Structures are given as structure tokens and as C-alpha cells.
């Protein structure tokens, strides 16, 4: 997110504190101090990872500190799950299987490892899916469950939250 705050001592620290208060993790802080600026404000870009659903709280806390939020960047896909698919994966159009996830718009396949022991035998693949949050991940897995059933693939889902 990109923040704008008063250029006075202690302001940056005050702006960073709410992030840890809501359980966030700061990945990078980019500090623009423009000596030519006449507005006596400081522009800061912060890259951070937040637990789900805490963003609204953080925004409210920052506002209380008198920090102006210029922009909140797009949330990246941070939620990962790995599944195993067994069956005639190529014959049932693997790229279509992947596309069914990717085309949801809220989840995507980010990694595939595949093992094909012999022609005409069932192959096995490990597929990792990324989504923005748990609800989207559950929805993506529901899509995959349907596709697997339609294509007679055995889908092995993770127990709990395995990335």
C-alpha cells in the first residue's frame, strides 16, 4: 500500500505500529523523501502480508493516526493447497483441467509435477493451486472435485492446510 503522512519525527513508526497490532508482517518499506516537495508530507510504500480479513481494521487504525492512504495494491494470491490427481490425465485434457481452475478468476494452478509410468497406464500428478483466501480455495477445490468426477480422475485432497 502507498501511504502519505506528515513529515515529522515519529510519524513513520506510528504508521508501522498498527500493522503489527493487527498481526501483519512487513515485507518491505520504501521511503520516498522528496526534498523538493513543499507539502511537508512523506510518501511511503509498504509491502506487507496480512492475515485474512484484517485489512479493514488496519485501514481504520491508520486513519486514526492521521495517515492518508493513497493506494492499496491488489491482493496477491497467498493461499496455497496441494492435491494429487490420478487417472488418464492427458487423455482427459490436462490443459482443460487446469483451465477450469484458472478461469475461475480467483484461483490458479501454479505448479504441476507429473509421473507417467507407461503409455495407456494411469498417470499421477501433484497439483498446487493458489487463491486469495480460504473461501476462494474451497470454491476452487469444489470446481476441481466436479471436473475430477466428470473425467473419472481420483482426486486426493489435503487434510487440513497443506501448501
Amino acid at each position, binding site marked *: 500500500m502507498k501511504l502519505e503522512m506528515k513529515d515529522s519525527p515519529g510519524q513513520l513508526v506510528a504508521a508501522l505500529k498498527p500493522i503489527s497490532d493487527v498481526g501483519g508482517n512487513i515485507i518491505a518499506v520504501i521511503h520516498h523523501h522528496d526534498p523538493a516537495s513543499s507539502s511537508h508530507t512523506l510518501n511511503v510504500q509498504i509491502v506487507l502480508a496480512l492475515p485474512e480479513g484484517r485489512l479493514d481494521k488496519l485501514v481504520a487504525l491508520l486513519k486514526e493516526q492521521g495517515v492518508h492512504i493513497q493506494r492499496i495494491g491488489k491482493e496477491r494470491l497467498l493461499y496455497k493447497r*496441494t492435491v494429487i490427481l490420478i487417472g488418464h490425465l492427458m487423455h482427459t485434457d490436462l490443459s482443460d483441467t487446469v483451465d477450469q481452475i484458472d478461469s475461475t478468476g480467483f484461483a490458479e494452478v501454479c505448479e504441476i509435477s507429473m509421473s507417467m509410468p507407461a503409455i495407456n497406464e494411469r498417470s499421477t500428478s501433484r497439483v498446487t493451486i493458489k487463491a486469495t483466501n480460504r473461501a476462494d480455495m474451497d470454491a476452487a477445490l469444489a470446481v476441481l472435485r466436479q471436473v475430477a468426477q466428470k473425467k473419472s480422475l481420483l482426486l486426493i485432497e489435503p*487434510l*487440513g492446510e497443506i501448501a
Partner: protein
Amino acid sequence: MKAVLIGLGSVGRGVGEMIAAKKPGITITGIADSKSGCICNEGIDIESVLENKRRTGACGDLAISAMDVIKNADYDVLIEVTPTNALTGEPALGYIRAALAKKKHIVTSNKGPIALAYKELSALAKKKGVALRYEATVGGAIPIMHTLEDGLNGNEIVAIYGVLNGTCNYILTRMAAEGLTYEQALMEAREMGYAEADPTYDVKGIDAAIKLVILANTIWGDGTKLADVDLTGIDLLTPEALRLAEEGDCTIRLIAEAIPAQKILRVSPRLIEKSHPLVVEGTLNALTLETDMAKEITLIGKGAGSIETASAIIGDILYIRDHYGKRA
């Protein structure tokens, strides 16, 4: 405390041997197998009956049936350990009904009647003022029911996850450890005596599903039936699946899972971290209970075996003795 023992297979023999050896204060007044029976209200010499069974194949008088023993012997507890029939529950179901009608406590290792007719049997037992106990039906020696009713008393059980079939767990353990195919691991399980000649019941997940149904009915009294369980077996797994799982520090286990709030009731092979407490080796069983106060509790132990199952049966009998008092 007087009891009759119906069924002299592996479990029945184990119960008989342990009662004879450990003398826990249980007098056996009747014994029956599938073709014969004997009654002695002063107490049967169990060892000689077991010896008779070994020598002749029958435990007693061919003219005395199991039902005769149940109806005519003098006893407080029916120990019902005949083989499970998952479709009808018989003949055990009839035995249990007959004993309940006579106001006798029931201790059984038989999954059929409990999975099929839990509501009816538990209501009948309550009406007659007797106990219906079945610790041995799920997880062999692991004291699951005791934990639920005593140790976790007052807790709300939110979800359960279990490894409830030793045959599947053995096969998966061997596929992961040695890179065996499913067929090779199954053959090995047969040689070790862990799998039946017809392994369908185990490898298709049916046995685990029946145990899940018993647990769900016990915990939530929701009238769950076998047909409600979403079922996937392990028979289509490839060695590559276990290898790919391994690369991510995971493995595959057949997990029985019930989460009523999410309407989840299923048995399926699952990807699971190797460090997860449910990842047990060989024929072991494990069960995680997720509760509101205690949070997660995982129990691990022997899921089958003659003496191991006898442990659960004898535990149930002594529980009845301690909670219902001795009756004349």
C-alpha cells in the same frame, strides 16, 4: 458379575482367555459358538471349553444354540462377539434384542447391529434400564467411547478425523516405505494375515465408513447411516502418488472424517503431512477429536487383535459393574 459369551472366534477366544487368566471378577455362565453352546450357572471352566473348541471345533452341546444360552442362562451381561454382518446385522441383532428384552446389559464388538440399529437398540436399553456398550467396535483397544463419555464430558465435539482401518493403513505404509504397487502391498497384507481373502470391505473404505457411522451416532445421535457417507477407497492409488506426496514431506492415509457443521461425512484417501499426529504406521489406528474446550485430542493404538479387542470388551464389562452395581 455373571456374563454369557456368544461367539468364539478370535475376539471371543481372547475375551475367554483373559477372563480366565486375569480373573477380573467376571463369571461366565454360558458360552456359544455358531453351532453349539453350554450353560452352567455356577460358572464355566473357560479353559476347558476353549480346549474342547480347539479339539472338536465345537464349544459345547450341539443341541444348545446361542439363542438358548441367551434365553436360559443366568447372567447380567451379554458379551456379543460374533462376526459382523454389515448388511443385516444378524444374527447379532437378534441376540442383542433378545437379551435387552430380558433386561440384560450388552457388551459387543459387533459393528453390524450398532451401525444399523443404534437408535432402536440404545432406546430399548434405556427403557430397560441397562447399558449398551460397544467400545470394541471402533479402534480396537483404543478407549474412544470411554474418552468421549468420561474424559471429554461437557465438551462439544466439533469434528472427528480418524485412521480406522488397519488393513488400509498397512497397505499405504508399505506403498510409501517400499514403493510397492497397491497389488503388491495388498498381497503382502494377506500374507501377514492383515487382509481378508476378499479385501473389498476394507480397501473400498466400507469398514472405516461403518466405524464413522457408529462414532457419529454416538457423538451427535444424528441417525447417520452408511449410505450417507461419501466413500472413496484406496484401491486406485498409484505408487507415484505416494512418491509425489513424499516430495512435499507428505504421505497418503485413508481418513474418515465427520464435521456436522459443514455437512461433511466422508472416507477418502488424503494428502497429509508426515508430521501430522494421524500419520501412524502399519496396522495402528488413530483418532483425532476436535472439541470446543479441550481442542484437539488424538488417540493412537492397536485397532485389532484378539487380546487387544478383549481389552475393550473387559473394560466395558467392568464399567457396567462399577456404574450399574452388581445384580443378583
